[in-house]
């Protein structure tokens, strides 16, 4: 990449920050902590602004797309083509009364909507938006993403518990139950990525994909699928949004929240969606690189377009698939995704071992691995699904104790009279 100097060079937005830092250090001779704080604040404000703009745009985009998918029009009254609808929504949420239930646990009721923002935004600290555009490139980045994502549950549980409402508590407990199931799958899926890239630093995962010109999407298709499903569960995107399933438990954990407090949950859901899309793009889709295209197009623009594409996938599944039941979702995690993810980790480890020990050229090894893993993924998904679908009736689960406690509705087939088949 040629030297970045001119102010109109948009390929790397980080060099503006660098020039500010240099000006602070050289001209004003500021101490180290000033530059540290200034660069941090610039990064945080930039990420926050970008998140808010993206969220406001995607409120409109998502509602229009879902409308189109469901053969209706969607918002089209406020402004041209309904473009000002998000602003109207935001104003409405700000002006509405934020009711606190009399029997609510007040401090926790107030804490819930605040805490829900933390995991959704902190994840962006480790995401490389472009060359030199990372707020903090931790060397345990992948683990950090998972750890921060898991604290999301605590916020949801606080919100659901403090509402003092049985539907809110049911929704919160569903989230808690889902998280312990799907966190495992997330970890196993990302383990496949780490095994290949050989580093947990997100910047190095991107560099690895750029160096070998191989997005991990092609090497780890099974990991990508299980990661995206597990993430959709974690951020409560439909069809996995059973913790706020409006056809069963009103609105789940935010039943009692109104006004801007509800707006916080609504916003945080988008932020978490962007966060998961950003992680997916970074780990599986090559981050801000695209086979040399980043020489010509700003890397952050590539990153954002991939991110919006992944987010569109989430919208698409929301518009297409019906919501799962909680017992189906739990069984899917433990009986379907977990064995597949374990096999995937084993295969990935074996492949990397063979590649390193056998001194195979990466031009030979990586295409073979890609094809083999794609075939394996398809075979495993189809084969395991067929196998699980053909269990003998007496070996199928009749009742799930825990999921029933969490508000699962399950159907007990009526007794057949003896003698009938």
């Amino acid at each position, binding site marked *: 990449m040629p030297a970045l100097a001119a102010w109109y060079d948009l390929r790397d937005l980080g060099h503006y920050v660098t020039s500010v830092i240099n000006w602070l250090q050289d001209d004003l001779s500021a101490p180290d902590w000033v530059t540290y704080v200034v660069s941090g604040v610039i990064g945080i404000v930039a990420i926050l602004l970008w998140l808010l703009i993206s969220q406001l745009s995607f409120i409109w985009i998502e509602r229009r797309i879902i409308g189109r998918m469901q053969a209706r029009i969607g918002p089209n009254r406020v402004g041209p083509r309904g473009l000002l609808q998000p602003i109207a929504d935001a104003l409405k949420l700000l002006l509405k009364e934020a009711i606190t239930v009399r029997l609510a646990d007040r401090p926790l009721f107030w804490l819930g909507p605040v805490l829900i923002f933390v995991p959704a935004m902190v994840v962006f600290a480790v995401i490389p938006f472009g060359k030199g555009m990372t707020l903090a490139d931790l060397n345990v980045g992948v683990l950090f993403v998972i750890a921060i994502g898991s604290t999301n549950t*605590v916020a949801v549980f606080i919100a659901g518990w403090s509402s003092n409402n049985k539907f809110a508590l049911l929704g919160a407990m569903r989230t808690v139950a889902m998280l312990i199931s799907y966190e495992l799958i997330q970890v196993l899926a990302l383990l496949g990525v780490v095994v290949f890239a050989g580093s947990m630093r997100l910047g190095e995962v991107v560099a690895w994909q750029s160096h070998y010109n191989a997005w991990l999407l092609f090497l780890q298709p099974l990991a990508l699928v299980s990661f995206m499903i597990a993430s959709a569960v974690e951020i409560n995107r439909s069809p996995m949004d059973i913790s706020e399933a409006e056809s069963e438990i009103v609105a789940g954990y935010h039943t009692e929240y109104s006004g801007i407090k509800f707006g916080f949950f609504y916003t945080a859901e988008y932020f978490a969606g962007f966060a998961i899309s950003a992680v997916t793009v970074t780990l599986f889709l090559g981050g801000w690189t695209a086979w040399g295209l980043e020489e010509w197009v700003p890397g952050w623009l590539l990153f954002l377009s991939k991110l919006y594409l992944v987010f569109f996938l989430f919208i698409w599944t929301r518009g297409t698939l019906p919501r799962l039941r909680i017992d189906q979702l739990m069984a899917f995690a433990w009986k379907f995704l977990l064995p597949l993810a374990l096999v995937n980790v084993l295969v990935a480890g074996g492949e990397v071992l063979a590649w390193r020990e056998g001194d195979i050229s990466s031009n030979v090894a990586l295409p073979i691995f890609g094809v083999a893993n794609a075939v394996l993924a398809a075979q495993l998904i189809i084969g395991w699904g067929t196998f699980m679908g053909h269990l003998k009736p007496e070996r199928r689960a009749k009742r799930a104790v825990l999921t029933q406690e969490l508000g699962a509705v399950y159907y007990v087939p009526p007794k057949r009279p003896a003698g009938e088949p």
Partner: protein
Amino acid sequence: MDDAGSVIAFWLLAALTVGSALGVIAVRDLIRALVLLITSFLGVAGLYITLSADFVAVAQVLIYAGAISILLIFAIMLTPRASRDNAETFLQVPAFLLAGLVAFTIAFISLQTDWSIAERGGFGETASAIGEALLSKYVLPFEMASVLLLVAMLGAIVLVRPEGTPEE
């Protein structure tokens, strides 16, 4: 620990950890106690970061703030409603005595010991070093721990399994 930032961070995090840990035993409501306990866990994670133990810090957030807290949520939720507050029990005095003894012992030892100060700076990357140590030098304890956890998990499943088959 020479620069001012580390010192300030250490004292802030120590105050957060100890303060919220004190809150855990002082607060009546069990869920509030749990929230304070999670805060305390996060404070400990912060202390690990000041020691440049990044892997341990993230593992602390993942395991304690993420998983142990959920375990506690389940434990509280499965407890009958009557016992959901931090009630007074006859074990209060012995517990305070024991806790005091432990605190005194740790404080005494840490004050009396002549600590040797390491000359080198902070660690660079700890994750790969920990991984290699676990799978080479300490592979036996590592495997034994995993077998132990598996046995515990199977035991839990066997214990909570309902007797006989449910009604058809």
